[in-house]
């Protein structure tokens, strides 16, 4: 039973990683095109992309932490 729940937990982590990867490719990579019409400065675009990527990764870690808390609270308090 513990193994099945752990496997589900890892599937959740996998889905979150793929979601973040897809978000970065679909929305963050072409930022220059739909934000500055392809005319933005390279350094400015890179800085904005890096900032968004870091925020998204922090959100991912916080999400994983929340998932962990829910799971641990349920299992270890039994």
């Amino acid at each position, binding site marked *: 039973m*513990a193994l099945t729940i752990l*496997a589900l937990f*890892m599937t959740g982590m996998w889905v979150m990683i793929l979601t973040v*990867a*897809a978000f*970065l490719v679909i929305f963050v*990579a072409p930022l220059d095109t739909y934000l500055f019409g392809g005319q933005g400065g390279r350094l400015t675009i890179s800085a904005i992309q890096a900032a968004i990527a870091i925020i998204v990764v922090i959100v991912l870690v916080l999400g994983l932490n929340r998932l962990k808390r829910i799971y641990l609270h349920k299992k*270890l308090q039994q």
Partner: protein
Amino acid sequence: MLDGVNLITYGAAVSAISFFGVLFLTPATIRSLTAKHKVVADAHKPEKPQVPRPAGPVIMISIAAAEIVLFILTMNIAVLAILLTTAIAFLVGYIDDIRVMPGWFKPVALLAAAIPMVVLDIYVGEVYGESLNLIFGRAYIPLLYIPLIFVIIPITGNTINSIDVLNGVASGFLIIASIPLLASIAIFGSYEVFLAALPMLFASIAFYRYHKFPSRIFPGDSGTLLLGTMYGAVAIAGSSEIIGVIALLPAVMNSFLFLASVKRIVEHREVKARPTILTDDFKLAASTDSKAPATLVRLIVVDRPLGEREIGYQIFKLAIFTALLAFASIAIQYIVLFR
């Protein structure tokens, strides 16, 4: 570019050197370490047998021999970068093996292991692609990729190091996690890096023979750090960073749970409240201490106490599951790239 014959010949040569190197040198290492009283107690067994440690030097010698041969044959700079990164990680681990270092030492010292990859790419080139493989596409981030290397290398090294808690787990886990990584490197990376990654897999297979339950030798920090760091280095050089992370998820989860519990970088031995307790019949049970850190093993034994061998198999089942998730990710990327 390697042709099919060279790929098979070189692959067979580096695999054989690393595999037979570890296979034939380890028994002599066990005898030598035992004679020098370089042993530690295997705490989870009734008699607490003394097990020799570390096996890092024999793993390093075998992998280095294979990588040097591969570098001479291909003159590929990524092979040299992987070898140097692995060697520095081995030295960091070996210092920790012979002297007890504080918790911050390994993650900080492992930053040095990332230097050969960055420096060789800047001055020679073609160590890594400067773009992050994000499965659904690539993000070209030449400047941001450098700090990312300094993050990935210490994390993978410490992740494999932190899962080395029971007999055979670190080596067995790395064998399973390496398979999807190698497949990804062969498809999305380069054949040279694929060849450079083979010694990691074959040295681990040979070492598992001695490390599996009941262990005849422990890898030590030098063994686990060199293997974990090499895993990170080949994932970077082979454009398979995210696939590498997915295959490593159980170990990543273990590190994440531990760090989220103790909220600081600390050695496991420095934590007073243990995550598991040893029962009278030498099984591991989950600790009921609320201050005890959460770890993968604690979660596995939360329903009922389990023996050391059984917990190892449970971790391997999880590793196989995440290896399948990594293969599913490879399939998604293949469809996105070649549709």
